[in-house]
């Protein structure tokens, strides 16, 4: 059964495109046939994150206007079998596409692919409406910040109004050190406020910048902690249960070790709680 998932957030710059690229790569590495669609018409970026910007001939608007076949516009990623990009038009505006167009396009794509991932533009206007039109479910990306969570809440409401069942949450740019000292909202705070199931936590890590510089998503890199976080989210997307969350703790500092030795601090209690090997609250629902 094939599925179309929209990756959305409301707020810009929280990691929708990075998440779409990495989940596309991770699902393809699992042997799935995946298409990632850049729905940000006029401001395309998914091609750059994937390192496929030099291979664009046709785009989404060409397909919708019948200037080329879908197959001609799809760019095959040569690094992994089964990953294709449908780029956005750069010189058109979002009004070139309607929700009906997207619904038809997604329907056509679902016949060929196991997963169609749509990278939604920021905002709640036409581009958002286009992006959710053909989707079966939504993944909301947020960061542990007031502004991003506020926008995520708005988007969750709009998804529910559009009858997109059970949106799920990725918490991106998580910084364990700040959480530990009480300067960043933790997982429980965010889930309490947004009240939707969690599908993954992605640590804030320099890998994201380095991989974006190179057009080589972290999910390709076996050693990357960000890559690992996305690979685990991909497994949860396919319905795997019991996928533990990645340890978002940073390595123990010298001072932490000294304090522990002196008997002042427990042994990395946070790390245990983050990665207990048990599916956490949200995950049970993800799995079902």
């Amino acid at each position, binding site marked *: 059964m094939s599925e179309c998932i929209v990756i959305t957030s409301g707020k810009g710059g929280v990691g929708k495109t990075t998440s779409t690229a990495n989940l596309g790569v991770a699902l393809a590495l699992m042997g799935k046939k995946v298409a990632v669609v850049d729905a940000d018409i006029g401001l395309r970026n998914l091609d750059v994150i994937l390192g496929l910007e030099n291979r664009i001939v046709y785009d989404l608007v060409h397909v919708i206007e019948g200037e080329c076949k879908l197959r001609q516009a799809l760019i095959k990623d040569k690094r992994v079998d089964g990953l294709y990009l449908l780029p956005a038009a750069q010189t058109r505006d979002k009004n070139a596409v309607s929700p009906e167009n997207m619904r038809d396009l997604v329907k056509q794509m679902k016949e060929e692919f196991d997963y169609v991932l749509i990278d939604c533009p920021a905002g709640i206007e036409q581009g958002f409406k286009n992006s959710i039109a053909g989707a079966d479910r939504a993944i909301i990306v947020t960061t542990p910040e007031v502004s991003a969570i506020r926008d995520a809440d*708005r988007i969750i*409401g709009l998804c529910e109004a559009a009858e997109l069942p059970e949106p799920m949450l990725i918490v991106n740019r998580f910084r364990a050190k700040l959480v530990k*000292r*009480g*300067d960043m909202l933790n997982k429980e705070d965010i889930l309490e*406020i947004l009240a939707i199931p969690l599908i993954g936590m992605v640590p804030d890590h320099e890998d994201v910048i380095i991989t974006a510089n190179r057009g080589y998503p972290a999910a390709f890199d076996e050693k990357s902690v960000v890559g690992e976080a996305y690979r685990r989210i991909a497994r949860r997307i396919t319905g795997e249960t019991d996928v533990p969350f990645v340890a978002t703790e940073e390595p123990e500092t010298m001072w932490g070790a000294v*304090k522990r030795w002196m008997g002042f601090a427990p042994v990395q209690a946070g790390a245990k709680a983050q990665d207990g090997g048990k599916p956490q609250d949200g995950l049970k629902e993800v799995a079902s």
Partner: protein
Amino acid sequence: MINLLDRFFVGRHTGSKDDAKSRLKILLVHDQVDLTPSQMDAMRAEILAVIARYAEIEPTKVDLRLERGDDGVNLVSSVAVRRVNARLAAVGG
């Protein structure tokens, strides 16, 4: 002593996430009901004025706010009353 050393090695424990959380909770309720903080203040003042016609209120112990519950937004209030003004209550009732 250990706290001082903690401060030195780990950095400031400002606990700003609690501010973030309480601000968010208020923000989301207001987003949902589309009521601005000044409208909220006006509503609070009017409600308290009505209560004050019947009872003497302890002004420092007034809590009136919108809260998100499972089934929508609730107006939650806790108003400390010094004494009920029986004469006025009889007229009003």
